[in-house]
């Protein structure tokens, strides 16, 4: 399983949100702590719904939580 091209700022956002624990974030978004660990490490790309729930938990826009690296604009014909 290769590393995902989707990077994230979850660790930093947790720290900035009163040092929120992985378990607290997991409970807030309805996922397991193992899933939060996997997302933080870049071993799992969450569904769009879970991504939005994470962003909502931090009260921040989605693009501030997740960054798509090597994103190329669509080629024009």
């Amino acid at each position, binding site marked *: *399983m290769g*590393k995902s091209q989707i990077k994230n700022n979850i660790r930093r956002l947790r720290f900035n949100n009163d040092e929120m624990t992985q378990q607290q974030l997991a409970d807030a978004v309805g996922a*397991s702590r*193992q*899933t939060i660990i*996997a997302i933080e490490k870049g071993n*799992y790309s969450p569904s769009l719904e879970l991504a939005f729930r994470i962003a909502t938990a931090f009260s921040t826009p989605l693009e501030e939580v997740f960054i798509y690296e090597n994103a190329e604009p669509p080629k024009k014909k």
Partner: protein
Amino acid sequence: MSYREKENIINIISGLLITLIYGWIVFQRHLEGSINLTTDYNSWGMVFIIFIVVSIVARIIIYIIFHIINAIATREEKIPAEDERDKLIKLKATRNSHYIFSSGFVMSVMALAFGMPVYIIFIAFVIVGLLSEIVDNGSQIYYYRKGV
């Protein structure tokens, strides 16, 4: 190690133990002559039905023991709820186990076509069933560790 990984390891060990012990008992009964597995195919049906019941009962007992030991060791009584990642991992593992089972089925049918005795297909079912279960749980452990 997470609860799910431990659960998968328990599944592999219990599957191996139940199949090997039950297989050994059935084989001994065959050697004694109380059942004839080479020509009497009805007894294979009984062997499989009893195996399913024994397997379910044994697994329930093993799960209860595992849950008690895990709760004592980790002080966590609640079984973690299944989330989207668990479901995705389970789906991919089931796909892998189906590949193994269907390949085994095709190979056993080919063995029949090449003149092997009919009871070979039943033995193949047992072996391939066990293998596919190991692949299912092994794949889950792999995906939990390496990512999905």
